């Protein structure tokens, strides 16, 4: 059911019955390491290419999600996923091996909540009983495709972000035990003229603010109605900007815990990640690993996850284009709440 302008209201309360998260060594060295299903010690996962390593992360995360849901692979009816690589190759190969009907989506780092919103929509509308959403990113494939070769000695500015190596997947079901997806706000593209690919937090912050303000208006909720509102990968710079934009617009974000997955996944002071984490996997592993566990433990009752995406391509920024950005918000509640 559409509520307001951009928000899907899931009246049939689709349930996230199982999630799977797999991360690399840097994320394993971060503060949330205990919340992931599998932590790899090697960046290359003993694969012959970075691309193969990224693919393996997603395959493992989807296996964990299906296993943790108590399902067999053939019971999942649709798989919705996306990643950062050209033509979504990580997801295409994973979907090939899963052998499931597959919907590939591109939302850059917002893919986690875009795919979760779509999976919840399928289940809520009755067109699927079980649907899986998944996404992945790898630090080295992202560096290779969007920036420079991984071993190239270029100095990164303090506004740059560190792409998370990992993958997260979630199985959404019509009924069962687990956190409930109650609504989702699909974002609009917001582009306020930032063109520096080493400053994506600043580029994406207005998109996050726009989606959150639209979500609050569509649902008639206040920030205080959420125990936590968490953005995807704004990191230090983008988060600071978002806080100030909310203050400017008179949105009382101080009434809730307002945080960012890119700041939660690493110890930003200690680990050399510049402004913080980014990438599709950033919001996916923090939400499906850390936040789901906190919801299940009852520490959180209702959260809003706002995954942010910078929809640039290496070609577009080399041609001097600005960075179109988007944010998708999904509200998740504790099952028995």
């Amino acid at each position, binding site marked *: 059911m559409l509520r307001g302008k951009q928000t899907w209201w899931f009246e049939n309360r689709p349930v996230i019955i199982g999630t799977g998260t797999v991360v690399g060594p840097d994320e394993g060295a971060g503060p949330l390491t205990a919340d992931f299903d599998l932590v790899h010690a090697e960046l290359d996962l003993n694969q012959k290419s970075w691309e193969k390593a990224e693919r393996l992360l997603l395959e493992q995360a989807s296996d964990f999600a299906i296993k943790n849901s108590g399902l067999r692979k053939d019971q999942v009816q649709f798989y919705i996923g996306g990643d950062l690589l050209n033509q979504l190759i990580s997801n295409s190969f994973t979907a090939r091996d899963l052998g499931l009907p597959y919907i590939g989506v591109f939302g850059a780092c917002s893919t986690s909540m875009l795919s979760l919103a779509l999976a919840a929509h399928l289940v809520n509308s009755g067109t699927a009983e079980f649907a899986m959403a998944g996404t992945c990113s790898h630090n080295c494939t992202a560096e290779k495709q969007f920036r420079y*070769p991984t*071993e*190239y*000695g270029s100095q990164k500015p303090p506004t740059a972000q560190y792409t998370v190596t990992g993958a997260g997947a979630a199985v959404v079901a019509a009924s069962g035990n687990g956190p409930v997806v109650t609504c989702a706000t699909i974002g*609009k593209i917001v582009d*306020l003229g930032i063109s520096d690919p080493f*400053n994506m937090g600043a580029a994406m912050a207005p998109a996050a603010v726009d989606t959150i303000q639209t979500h*609050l208006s569509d649902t008639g909720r206040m920030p205080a109605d959420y125990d936590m509102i968490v953005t995807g990968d704004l990191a230090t710079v983008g988060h600071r900007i978002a806080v100030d934009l909310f203050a400017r617009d*008179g949105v009382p974000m101080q009434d809730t815990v307002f945080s960012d997955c890119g700041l939660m996944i690493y110890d930003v002071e200690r680990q050399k990640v510049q*402004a913080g984490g980014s990438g599709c996997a950033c919001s996916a592993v923090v939400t499906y690993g850390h936040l789901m566990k906190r919801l299940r433990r009852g520490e959180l009752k209702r959260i809003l996850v706002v995954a942010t995406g910078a929809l640039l391509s290496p070609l577009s920024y080399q041609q001097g284009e600005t960075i179109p950005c988007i944010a998708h918000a999904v509200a998740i509640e504790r099952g028995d709440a």
Partner: protein
Amino acid sequence: MATRTAGKGKFKPMSMSSKEYKTFAKQREPSRSVLQNCVRAFVSGGLICVLGQAIQNGYMSWMKLSATQAANPTVATLIFISVLLTCFGVYDKLAQWAGAGSAVPVTGFANSMCSAALEHRAEGLVLGVGGNMFKLAGSVIVYGTVAAFVIGLIHVIFGIRGH
């Protein structure tokens, strides 16, 4: 400039002009210390040159080469060290600290070629390594040659001579 309207949870969508936002964002970005980067580049670049000089002096005293004869093996040795450090995954970490100090000397050039070759090994020897090795170094060669041509013209036309 509060945009909140009447009623619970009623907020207008984000609105700000691109020009206004750029200034807004700029004020909230961490500043990059130009002075600190210059000092680091001076120290690290200088140390690489000192190392090069030491290697050259070594070739001159042990292998009895003249300064000119020792130049080529010195460059080769520096390239070898840079490639080794790139392969061990150390050079990019040094570069994050050193900045231009590790990018400008010949070691930076070697790093740009070696890192591209390593990165694209998975795409094969021809289209991967061969086709991508000069991805970054290519523009150095192109504009190095263009610059040399311009300097050459100045030299011919105005008769300005170096040593």
